[in-house]
């Protein structure tokens, strides 16, 4: 590695220690920062989840007062969405997009540094809001008025934090779009790009489309709270239901923002470990684009019970079900890629297959929720909690683990501990299902979400769910250990670590990838 760095003159003058990380404009350094930050946030959000499950372990109020419980659920959602999953994907984008398209760095290196360093500020605002008078925001992660137009300083801090997270995402997306459109290696046409890059290109467009709308909604809530406007205040001529429309215009594409890069990673991993090219590449690209497009027209399925004409309910119901079609195309293509492939089951592949199985369960419960009469029944119950944890934890988070194990050898130059990796997968798989599968039953039986206590008949399933959640939380400490162990040393990884890998970072770069790579772009035939 030292030899490679010496080739590039400016490799010598980059600062060391803390200043290296504060001032870095290197896409690999920034990617590492993003990934470490999101892992830290995963544990903060996870701590809140453990608090929630500890309170729900038994009926009655034992650990958290209802107000604190509400803050825990609210901040758990916000931290996991804006602090853990989204920055983790931007971290993968930073590391992988330049390597996979043969670019020397991201298009706007300084902007890149900025987008990262906004994140700790926002995270600090969220975490310290627990300690201000009145406590942290407690009106749910969707901060619907009138709850979000009341509340103390903690709510203002939360709203401001969402603003800062949003700014960071918009800058990150602009950077990613420019990099992908302008800096691909000669010969790498759009329709030859790896699926991960495609997933991110479309995600980035979705982000610049809807993040500013969220910024608008947040600004309106802030001015309603502090400057006497009445966007959402019925008494002043506003309408709280309008907030839900504006919020979900952002919020529904947001769930695809968290899952489209996951589709990309899974496509890479499944193809590599099946040792076959991805089945139906073109249809995969169009499926992602179709999902992104449809996601902008389904927002009101989150509000079937908020008051809506039947025509509206029918439109949003059918539009939502339509998303199942391109998603089905993707799942069938992954299955067809595995069909008669010479499959091996290393940890990334295990997480990818786990992703497909569990994401499909989450997708199906999504279609169930889309049916208006059923949604009226399960609205705000644990059925919905089970649904979105199946798509976000065993969806987005499993894909993140899959990608991390897949690329760790390229990032660190060492193999991770395969035995421990398999343990991580199987423990995650078992505990995840233990925690969340039973929540389907709880929801169908009518247990409401966001309430710290419950009726006695829900006790057994809640205890199972809590034990599963504790197990899942502890298992993630194993992941941290595996990553640290892999960074510190281990078996030397081959340049092309995986036999079936075909993308540029495996075929053209040594492991670990040098600090400066592709200063001369490779030529793709």
């Amino acid at each position, binding site marked *: 590695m030292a030899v490679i760095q010496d080739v590039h003159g400016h490799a010598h003058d980059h600062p060391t220690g803390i200043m290296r990380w504060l001032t870095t404009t290197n896409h690999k350094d920034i990617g590492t920062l993003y990934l470490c930050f999101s892992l830290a946030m995963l544990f903060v959000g996870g701590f809140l989840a453990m608090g929630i499950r500890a309170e729900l372990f038994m009926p009655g109020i034992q650990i958290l007062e209802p107000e604190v419980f509400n803050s825990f659920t609210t901040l758990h959602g916000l931290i996991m969405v804006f602090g853990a999953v989204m920055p983790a994907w931007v971290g993968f984008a930073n590391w992988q997009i330049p390597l996979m398209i043969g670019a020397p760095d991201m*298009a*706007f290196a300084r902007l890149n540094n900025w987008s990262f360093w906004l994140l700790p500020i926002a995270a600090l605002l969220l975490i310290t809001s627990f300690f201000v008078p009145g406590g942290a925001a407690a009106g749910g992660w969707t901060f619907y008025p009138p709850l979000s137009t009341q509340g103390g300083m903690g709510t203002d801090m939360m709203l401001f934090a969402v603003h800062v997270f949003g700014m960071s995402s*918009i800058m990150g*997306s*602009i950077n990613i*779009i*420019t990099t992908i*459109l*302008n*800096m691909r290696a000669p010969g790498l046409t759009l329709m030859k790009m790896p699926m991960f890059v495609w997933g991110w290109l479309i995600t980035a467009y979705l982000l*610049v*489309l*809807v*993040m*500013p*709308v*969220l*910024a*608008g*909604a947040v600004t*309106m809530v802030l001015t309603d709270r502090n400057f*006497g406007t*009445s*966007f959402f205040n*019925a*008494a*002043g*001529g506003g*309408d709280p239901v*309008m907030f839900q*429309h*504006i919020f979900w*215009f952002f919020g529904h594409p947001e769930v695809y923002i968290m899952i489209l890069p996951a589709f990309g990673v899974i496509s890479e991993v499944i193809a590599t470990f099946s040792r076959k090219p991805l089945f139906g590449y073109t249809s995969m690209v169009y499926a992602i684009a179709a999902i992104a497009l449809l996601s902008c027209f389904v927002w009101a399925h989150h509000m079937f019970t908020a008051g809506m*004409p039947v025509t509206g309910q029918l439109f949003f119901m059918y539009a939502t079900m339509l998303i199942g079609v391109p998603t089905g195309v993707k799942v069938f293509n992954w299955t067809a890629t595995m069909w008669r492939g010479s499959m091996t089951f290393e940890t990334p592949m295990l997480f990818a297959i786990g992703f497909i199985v569990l994401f499909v369960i989450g997708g199906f419960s999504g279609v169930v929720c889309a049916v208006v009469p059923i949604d009226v029944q399960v609205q705000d119950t644990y059925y919905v909690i089970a649904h979105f944890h199946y798509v976000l934890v065993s969806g987005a988070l499993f894909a993140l683990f899959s990608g991390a194990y897949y690329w760790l050898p390229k990032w660190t130059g060492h193999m991770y501990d395969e035995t421990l990796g398999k343990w991580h997968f199987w423990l995650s798989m078992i505990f995840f299902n233990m925690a969340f599968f039973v929540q389907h039953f709880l929801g169908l039986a009518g247990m409401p979400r966001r309430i710290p206590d419950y009726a006695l008949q829900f006790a057994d399933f809640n205890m199972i769910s809590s034990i599963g959640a504790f197990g899942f939380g502890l298992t993630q400490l194993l992941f941290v250990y595996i990553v640290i162990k892999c960074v510190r040393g281990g078996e030397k990884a081959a340049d092309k670590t995986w036999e079936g890998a075909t993308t540029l970072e495996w075929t053209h770069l040594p492991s670990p990838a040098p600090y400066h790579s592709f200063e001369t772009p490779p030529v793709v035939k």
Partner: protein
Amino acid sequence: MTKTNNIDILKKLLVFSVVMFGFGYALVPIYKKFCEVTGIYELERPDAVSKNIEVDNTRLINLQLDANVRGLPWKFKSLQSHIRLHPGKLTEVMYEISNESEEPQTGQAIPSYSPKSLERYLKKVECFCFSQQVLNGKEVKQLPVRFLIDPEIPDDIHTATISYTFFKANAN
């Protein structure tokens, strides 16, 4: 592949982001307009009442009248606490608001109905809630609501409530 090219894309995407921020705000009037056109949200407009609605003398509906104030030093009450009426009959009820303070103040009344479906069958011809009310210090006003209940109202509704709450209106 050149630097200027990158800056061009940056500029376009920044402009696009600002436009989308504006779109967030544009959704406010779009939403209002959409609700008006489709007839979902007609808080401040009298309902059109067809001339040939027939009074259904076979039914009597018990209507409770509720009045509240939030954030204003006003007193607000309805002169009758409840009335009984036949669906289809044009009815007038009187409310009284009085300003307990010395300063002039502006309020806006917001209606709320129970059961929720009453909204569809309640036809208001005149209401103090269609506009903001200004009261000088110590002033007392009596205000009418003229309405009828559509005879189409489902048979299982025997009792209904109309509730008004006066909120402090922002000067605008």
